């Protein structure tokens, strides 16, 4: 496939991401202004950071005039999962692409864009990631702007319904391969059970979402890799 085609495919696949981002960033815009940021600052934060949990968490630190180090550390902990995703993507990224493409595509390595890139068979072209970014980033920024400037334009019920857009997309990525592969199916059920336990169990549930995601991902993936190592050919699946 040529660059143009790959880019367009990325843009098309990015549409549910854009919808989900609109909803999430809309709520972010409302909260950011409440925390004392101007509309412009809220939009700038979304345009430069492109991360939901990190941005939401930063608001309480900024509102409390917390220290820069405190902010940097909290972002590091909440967003460390991206390092794992970036590591995973490094193995799928087009081997012939210039390293500057890796630098540029890295900016768009959000949970959702990583999810779509992982679902690609074989190598991932930077142009596919750029295509997704071309619709997802404007969605994230526009939603923030709308929320910050006109927090009441979207009825609550629509916002609530859009809340599942990204999760539903994750299901559509994870479920089809699990249907064909029994190991994946059990892996996913096991991950769901452990995730539920970690969310309700006192003492563990106080963990931040970011930490929980990393610990569970590393632990479960490592256990699966030991118990059910994949064969070479499966690498492309």
């Amino acid at each position, binding site marked *: 496939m040529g660059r143009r085609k790959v880019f367009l495919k990325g843009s098309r696949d990015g549409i549910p991401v854009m919808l989900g981002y609109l909803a999430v960033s809309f709520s972010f815009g409302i909260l950011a202004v409440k925390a004392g940021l101007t509309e412009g600052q809220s939009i700038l934060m979304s345009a430069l950071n492109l991360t939901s949990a990190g941005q939401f968490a930063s608001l309480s630190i*900024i509102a409390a005039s917390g*220290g820069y180090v405190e902010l940097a550390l909290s972002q590091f902990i909440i967003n460390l999962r991206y390092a794992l995703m970036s590591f995973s993507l*490094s193995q799928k990224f087009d081997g012939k692409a210039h390293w500057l493409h890796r630098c540029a595509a890295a900016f768009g390595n959000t949970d959702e864009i990583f999810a779509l890139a*992982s679902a690609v068979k074989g190598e991932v072209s930077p142009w596919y990631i750029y295509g997704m970014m071309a619709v997802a980033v404007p969605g994230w920024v526009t939603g923030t702007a709308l929320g910050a400037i006109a927090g009441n334009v979207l009825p609550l019920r629509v916002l609530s319904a859009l809340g599942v857009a990204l999760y539903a997309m994750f299901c*559509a990525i994870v479920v089809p391969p699990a249907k064909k592969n029994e190991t994946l199916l059990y892996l996913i059920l096991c991950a769901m059970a452990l995730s539920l336990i970690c969310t309700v169990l006192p003492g563990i549930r106080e963990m931040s979402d970011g930490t929980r995601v990393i610990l569970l991902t590393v632990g479960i993936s490592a256990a699966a*890799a030991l118990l059910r190592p994949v064969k070479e050919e*499966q690498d492309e699946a």
Partner: protein
Amino acid sequence: MKHSVYGYILIMALVTYLIRMLPLTLIRKRIKSRFLQSFLYYVPYVTLTVMTFPAILSATGSPWSGAAGFLTAIALSWRGKGLIFTSLVSCAAVFLLEAAIV
């Protein structure tokens, strides 16, 4: 000392970008270890699963509508429907259920 909001924004942007950029640019060789290959093969599935469940149950106005959206998404993706269709219909399921409850 009063910190600037722009300072906060730039620092968090830098930290987040470096986390995303360093592994992708520094690790360019294909990993040979079978354990690491297997580990990385499983990472996306596990990470997407633990991010989705049980968080999806609290993503909407009520756990019931969240569950409805979740079940709709699983049913549709099990039948091999595409990303956009699954995503939109799940949103619609949440919307209709919440409209019916209230």
